[in-house]
């Protein structure tokens, strides 16, 4: 069974890049969200196996979205997308319940490694 992925990022570019990383039979991108509010809604609706979550997004930040999603599903598997220098924000997200993080610019192998590990945990 393919790992079902929800991608939350306000930049279409980033969403597309991430989508490309997941372009294999092992994954299936089942939804995309362009802001924190949409991420929460889509999560509740689609119940993905993995959610990749940008930190800085309009309406609601990725961290707030993590908090709400975890409230809804304690076992949600969320991977934060961050840039170098955002350590403290990522830590906040981890405290909120995110399972892991990946750093932009993305190295596909690394993204896949992280996501697969999180998905199988």
């Amino acid at each position, binding site marked *: 069974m393919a790992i079902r992925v929800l991608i939350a990022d306000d930049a279409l570019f980033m969403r597309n890049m991430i989508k490309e990383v997941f372009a294999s*039979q092992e994954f299936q991108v089942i939804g995309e969200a362009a802001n924190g509010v949409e991420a929460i809604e889509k999560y509740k609706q689609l119940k993905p196996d993995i959610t990749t979550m940008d930190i800085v997004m309009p309406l609601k930040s990725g961290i707030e979205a993590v908090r709400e999603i975890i409230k809804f599903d*304690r076992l949600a598997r969320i991977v934060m997308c961050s840039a170098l220098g955002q350590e403290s924000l*990522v830590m906040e997200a*981890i*405290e909120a319940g995110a399972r*892991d*993080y990946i750093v932009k610019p993305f190295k596909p192998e690394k993204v896949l490694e992280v996501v697969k*590990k999180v998905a*199988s*945990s």
Partner: protein
Amino acid sequence: MIDLSKYKALFLSEAQEHLQSMNDCLLKMEQGEPDEETISSIFRNAHSIKGMAASMGYEPIRDLAHAMEDLFDQVRHKQRTVGKEMTELLFQAADRIELMLKEIEQNREFNPDWKELQEKIQELVKKKPTEPGVEKPKIARPEPKAPEKAGNEIQVYISSEADAPSVRALILYKRLEELGKIVAAHPSLEEIKQGKIPSSPQGYPLRFTLQSKASSEQISEALKGVSELVKFEFKESVAGDTFAPEAAEPVKGPKESEPPTATILQTVRIRTQILDDLINTLGELILIKGGLEELHRNNPLAGLKTGLDRLDRLSAEFHDQVMSARLVPIEVAVQRFPRLVRDLAREEGKEIELEIQGKEIELDRTLIEKLADPLVHIIRNAVYHGIETPDERKKQGKSVVGKIKILASRERDMVDLSVSDDGRGIDPDKVRKKALEKGLINEDQARELTMEQCINLIFISGFSTADKVGMVSGRGVGMEVVKNIVQGIGGNVILTSVPGKGAMISLQLPRTVAITKVLLIKLAQEIFAFPLSRILRTIEILPYQIRKSQNQEYYLERQELIPLMYFHKLLDLKVPEEHHFPLNSLIVEAKKKKLALVVDDLVGQEDAFIRPMGKPLEKIPGLGGVTMLGDGRIVFVLDLVGLF
């Protein structure tokens, strides 16, 4: 707060074991006057399930098991005799709990109708037939408790290439915290949050002391789930109990007595992945040994021969040991069958007795796993199509009770597992007719078939589709699939039948297997398998990544030029006339040099049971064996060593 989700898998497997034991005992109870041991065993099973479910927070299971426990407590104290109504109710309750375990497994909500069942049991408990109004004696046994281990010393190194080691350290901290209580950490949580992480040549070292009920297996599982770790090790300061002591013996069936305490150290639970890894490592070792022997043949070196001989003996011994570690008694596969046969027989209005012999015979665990579905199918067929109704049997002068027998026996390296019944057998004419109707054979063929050939038509693709899809396996796999599975693991299926007397399906199985991960590739319209261990990575090459020099093309990767070649060429297959980009390629290493081999397509990965080709095909260079895919296709396994 401990994250209970970590215990879910263990809970599920243990609850399942208790249910299995309970089912066995209930069957025993149904068949005659139960002895005390059977009754207390059922009581214990219910009690354990209740305790585990309570600590996991699965209240419906807790409550249902509790009701069963209450009922059985009365039986145990001779306040109630066992009756038909009660047994039936208990069977239903056991089934319901099994269903709830499935619901947990699939993260579904509990179907609320369990409540009704619980109420029925409670009513029965209140209707005390022998001693009305007596207060139920309190259970003396304490709730099962999982004592904490004194502490696990865990040393972890985060890769020095980690993008954000402090975040990684925090994630690690969180994962361990889910397993128990971290009583000491270096660096501390505060230091981690401030990004103060010491570094060393091996990476960023971290040390934790974790107090936890988790087994070392669970801890290592949790650590493996964290990326960017280069190394971790841990030791337990004091050996304590695991989640439940019964866990020590995973493959044994129902337990009759109290959990063993002294034997815990003699058996450990190993993740099956480790067993698979051992096989793979061993495979590599044997390949290297082969290489060394080859080298020695070409350049004999004094003294090397003795060493190689010893290596040969040792690796053979190692092979045997690894293989025997993977053996599991057939009991694991057949233990559910008494219940299965009982339920199926009821459904069909038949009376059937199941006899199992030789369940202690051992097979590789992969085989046991793969055989589960085929066996269910065979048994189902025996019940549905083999055994006649009681009336019919009476007319035939047979005993009213039909008999199904599962018999396992071992002959050197093969195991014979047969399922026989004393039913009506397979009618060759009926099979012939059905095959004709379905257009699987034509009239001429039909006339020429011998009896034996006729009955073997049931293995042909397309024959089984009209089979009643039973509730039990729920998949309706036909005999064709059974045959494919068995042949896929290197075995064979033999069918014998005497009309009116019964039929027997005998599975001839290897005891052990060699499973290798292979990549399926397409070359000139053909599919080949290539051992995954031989591939450094797969890539897609684009035009700008190709350099040409002196008629040789190279793939440019970073600063490295890797010779580019069509795999077809090595096998004398037709090479495509021009490149179709992107070029699917495998980067392999041959004779210490990297090589980019272009293939037509990458088809997928598969666990293959590789069989030797036998004479004279084995002499063909480049072919390492054959394997059968899940769909029954046979493909060649390529062997790079022979190609250069």
